[in-house]
């Protein structure tokens, strides 16, 4: 499949999925009414639902899913490891730790942004610790050490969270677990704005670094020989990808699987050139998450299934089929 074909297909799916996400929800809104409602002629409640519940939610899904796709592709290139994904540097562990701490101290309800801020702070803490460990005295960042320290830091935060939960009352545990399973239910325009402000410039920067990333994915030595500023590219890309992930986790909880599978799927279809891989991973990730969110909302309405469950349930079979087909082709 050529990049252009996949690109066109994904843009189409992206837009369609977005529309479907706005059209459908737990409260049926007749399609004929939608346009009137947006213009302001329909009932106020319906307008509220469309513009203040569904639209921000769909947009947030697009940015978070797209961001995770971008981050996943970037980490896979920089760590030269197909198993890499956005949470590999312990970011989800740090964010969960921040969120759970705030919930258990009874501060989460004090303001609607306490929880995301705490999660973001926890994520930054994890990033800081992991980078600190991985940068040697010579200022060189060894990605193998990065990988290892990410695993270790993640385990550490896991233990801290388990400890906090073991001495917490039932309600805290329930809140904490629900948060970590990921949810876009709390999406509002403020979160959409933040996600956009972080993800768009980050995405643009990463796409501009597509060629150096191509080289880094082959090897740091090769990249150096072909003129790349290896340490510089490494740091900028890692920090950007980590920040995108931190913001995603802060607003939506831990949504797994997207950052791992989406880049691989795109790679199987159009190859590893990051000039195509990055923007297509963004589109594919956004589409994927918008679809998953729609299913999460509708399947057992009015109850919402945690979105991480849906991403895994859809993603796994889809990816396995793709994997089989690609190995058969070879």
């Amino acid at each position, binding site marked *: 499949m050529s990049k252009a074909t996949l690109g066109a297909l994904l843009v189409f799916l992206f837009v369609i999925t977005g529309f479907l996400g706005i059209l459908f929800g737990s409260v049926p809104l007749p399609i004929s009414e939608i346009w009137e409602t947006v213009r302001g002629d329909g009932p106020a409640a319906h307008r509220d*639902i469309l513009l203040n519940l569904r639209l921000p939610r769909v947009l947030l899904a697009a940015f978070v899913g797209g961001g995770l796709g971008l981050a996943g592709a970037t980490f896979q290139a920089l760590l030269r490891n197909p198993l890499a994904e956005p949470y590999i540097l312990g970011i989800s562990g740090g964010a969960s730790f921040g969120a759970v701490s705030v919930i258990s101290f009874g501060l989460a309800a004090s303001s609607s942004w306490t929880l995301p801020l705490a999660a973001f702070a926890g994520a930054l803490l994890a990033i800081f610790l992991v980078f600190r460990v991985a940068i040697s005295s010579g200022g060189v960042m060894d990605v193998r050490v990065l990988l290892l320290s990410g695993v270790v830091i993640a385990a550490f935060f896991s233990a801290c969270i388990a400890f906090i939960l073991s001495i917490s009352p039932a309600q805290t545990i329930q809140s904490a677990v629900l948060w970590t399973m990921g949810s876009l239910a709390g999406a509002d325009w403020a979160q959409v704005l933040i996600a956009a402000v972080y993800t768009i410039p980050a995405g643009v920067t990463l796409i501009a670094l597509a060629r150096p990333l191509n080289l880094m994915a082959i090897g740091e030595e090769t990249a150096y020989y072909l003129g790349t500023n290896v*340490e510089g590219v490494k740091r900028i890309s890692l920090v950007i990808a980590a920040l995108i992930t931190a913001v995603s986790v802060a607003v939506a909880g831990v949504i797994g699987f997207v950052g791992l599978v989406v880049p691989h799927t795109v790679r199987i279809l159009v190859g590893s050139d990051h000039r195509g891989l990055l923007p297509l991973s963004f589109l594919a990730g956004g589409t994927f998450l918008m679809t998953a969110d729609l299913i999460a909302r509708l399947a057992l309405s009015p109850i919402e299934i945690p979105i991480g469950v849906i991403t895994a349930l859809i993603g796994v079979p889809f990816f396995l089929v793709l994997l089989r087909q690609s190995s058969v082709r070879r």
Partner: protein
Amino acid sequence: MMRVRGQPALILKLLVYFAVLTSACQSTLKEKDSSSPNRIVLIDAAGLEVNLERPAQRIISLVPSATQTLEALGVSHKLIGRTDFDVEDWASDIPSVGGGLEPNFEKIIALKPDLVVRFAGEQDPNTRSRLDDFGIAHLSISPDRLTDLYKSILLLGKATGAEVVAASIILSIKEDLVDLQQWTSEKPRLQVAYILGGSPPWVAGPGTYIDEILGIAGAQNVFSDLGFLYGSVSPEQMRSRIIDVVLISDNAQFDHKLTPEARVEKIGKALEFPGPNLAQTAKQIAHILHQYQL
């Protein structure tokens, strides 16, 4: 390029940037409400001020005990939304908005409530702020002790214009409980455990209405020395205490082998919610323990 010692400063900057951005977004997007002087002003269980133009007419209850209270107050016709945990027969026709902690907001908004009753406390940090975002009045109640129950009944009564009924319900509950307590004070105290279910078993500790009701019904809650309101206990803890009677709700699974010498009695759903029927429940328990005449 970035050096290690520059990173703490960078991280601090990022945090501040994020915080400023979120709060800026919040304040620009939230519409300020400056309405006329209000008819009803209440302080709810979370200490928040609740303003209602007039008695609530369209209520969504996210708290099962509040649903029961609304019925006792005679305003169940004002209930337009409930949760999946409300299993009263009379409420089955009323649409559900999902679970109490993560209610479905589309449903809530579509029902156009003028009051949402929710749990005070940490469980669901988002509901309160989202209700504020949409300009929907909300009242929180606490489900912990008997005093919380009385306060809830009064709050709901005031909010629905049924203040007089509320006061009389509270009085009647109090009288019944005082009478019962006097009656059971002459009976030997039995060691009782109330199991909510689960494995390991989930029990009620001190500071809960369960603890208080058991005391009034002539029982000593064997778990009144625990350090939490609700939590699980190990088999060792169960064995190490003398338990005369184990009370469980109908749905609960309980392994009798944990308390081989105790008498196990099912008491239905009576103690599951701190609702207005607690006085009846107390008498029921006193009947089981001490043959109190119902």
